[in-house]
């Protein structure tokens, strides 16, 4: 098997750890979200929302724990969407000529970049988990050891699919746009509805219809569904809502993300095969 994509991965990670400002902000930003937004909101919500009587055996999840999954998705969303900027810079400053004139298959550029996007996402998720625990996020609360291991694998799988789908999406946009300024604008514009028309911070059920519809086609919603299932269990109370995820829901979310990843990959591949950089 050809492994040149590891070269692209290597270079990107080298720069991730090397450019200290980039490293620092990407590690500190999710923690700040959790600390500032999470704590202030949860201290409000947990006191406002009446403690509805709970069915026996169903756990009550505090808001901080509920929205931690949202912070994970937000972080991955931004990290991966912005990853395309690497390609944009490579294109704008001519570095991509070196790759395109080499025998490296073009798909390897995409795959290599996705690997580094996944690696960054995992590092950030880990930070949120650790920092969140300190703040009072309680994941895997009622899980047995086996269940926890199973859940961690499930989370990894969801992160993988979600991250690469976003990365290929962002690569496609990056390769099609002419300047990185334009790219930044498009990505900011795209990330807002993706994040807010989802169940990241609040339940979908009470959203206006239009936003609800968007959220049903939104990979972020499905990612979070999977994430909550694997961190909080298949039924729990939070934020005044009763959540129940069936195995079917989770499987559907998984398939949705798989479809998202495959279709964005095909788009990205088509784009990079046609890309002209001179």
């Amino acid at each position, binding site marked *: 098997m050809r492994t040149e994509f590891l*070269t692209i991965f290597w270079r990107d990670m*080298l*720069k991730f750890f090397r450019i200290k400002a980039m490293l620092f902000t990407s590690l500190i930003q999710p923690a700040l979200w959790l600390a500032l937004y999470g704590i202030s909101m949860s201290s409000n919500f947990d006191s406002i929302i009446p403690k509805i009587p709970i069915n026996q055996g169903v756990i009550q999840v505090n808001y901080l724990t509920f929205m931690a999954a949202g912070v994970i998705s937000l972080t991955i969303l931004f990290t991966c969407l912005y990853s395309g900027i690497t390609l944009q810079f490579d294109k704008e400053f001519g570095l991509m*000529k070196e790759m395109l*004139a*080499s*025998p490296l298959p073009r798909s390897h550029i995409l795959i290599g970049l996705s690997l580094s996007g996944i690696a960054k996402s995992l590092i950030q998720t880990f930070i949120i988990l650790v920092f969140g625990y300190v703040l009072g996020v309680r994941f895997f609360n009622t899980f047995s050891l086996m269940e926890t291991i199973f859940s961690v694998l499930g989370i990894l799988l969801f992160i993988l699919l979600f991250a690469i789908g976003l990365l290929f999406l962002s690569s496609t946009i990056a390769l099609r746009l002419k300047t990185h300024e334009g790219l930044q604008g498009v990505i900011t514009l795209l990330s807002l509805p993706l994040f807010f028309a989802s169940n990241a911070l609040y339940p979908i059920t009470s959203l206006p219809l239009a936003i609800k519809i968007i959220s049903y086609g939104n990979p972020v919603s499905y990612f979070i569904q999977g994430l909550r299932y694997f961190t909080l269990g298949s039924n729990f109370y939070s934020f005044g809502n009763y959540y129940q995820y069936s195995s079917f829901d989770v499987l559907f979310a998984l398939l949705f993300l798989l479809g998202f990843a495959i279709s964005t990959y095909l788009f990205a591949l088509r784009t990079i095969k046609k890309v002209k950089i001179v």
Partner: protein
Amino acid sequence: MVAYEITVEGLKYQYGKIKAVNDISFKVIKGEIFSFLGPNGAGKTTTINVLTTLLPIQKGKISISGFDLRTQPDEIRKSIGIVFQNETLDWNLTVEETLEFHGRLYAIPKKTRKDRINELIQIVKLEEKRDEFVKNLSGGMKRKLEIARGLLTRPKVLFLDEPTIGLDPNSRMRIWNYIKKVNKEGVTIFLTTHYMDEADQLSNNICIIDRGKIIANGFSEVLKQSLGMDVIYLQTDQDEKTFKIIKKMKEIKNIRKTPSELMISVEDGQKNMPRLIEQIRTQGIEIKSIYLKKPTLDDVFIHYTGRYFREEKKKKINI
């Protein structure tokens, strides 16, 4: 039988409506240094970009190292090295990492890669800068690093798009020597330049390209001799009339109008110049300036195009 490393037949390339390369054909002999000489916008880089598979081939037939560009682009990518006209370095990598990255792109085995990197860093005299970030290198050092990178894969053909642009005379000289050395080891060199002296010094064959067309092709000496032994540049107050008079003189091999003067080729300039002056004077035409020189590639260009290779030259003459 001459073996050719590159053959190009009927190559055309258009950016939208702009015909950047307009039906050119040429051959590069295995093991030679071949220069593509032409002014800004002539189509040199476009040609290189097509030859190195960065631009799609629109019209024409190209073969490099025995591979057809249309059907075996990957084979060609493996057998060529390129130094681009504009810098293509990642500023956040070190010198060594830059080479390492390139070697890995071409899947050169680790041991070989390390050996070659060590060797090349020595050759381009960047040992001290091995772990320095590219952003901290001088312009000339960056260029040398790019040349080293182009050689890392031991290509059969090395494409150099204006390799010495922005270098001081010393560094230029050193890079020329290095290019010659690499060439002696068997690498065919395809060079583009708009320095006449560079083309003249370095190469066997020269192809002069202008506005997408090849206007002259051959050994430097042959190109120059085709103008005759000497050229005379003449400026008068009535260029039109002078042109007609001189055209009739049998001593004159060729005459050509340029925007600001007349260019005249003759066999024996020292003998013919006084006669020329006399002829013109008797017609009541005033000579503003006249000078005699041995033909250079500059003159070859003027001869074929009626234009100056460089805009600056015209200005200098007008002073």
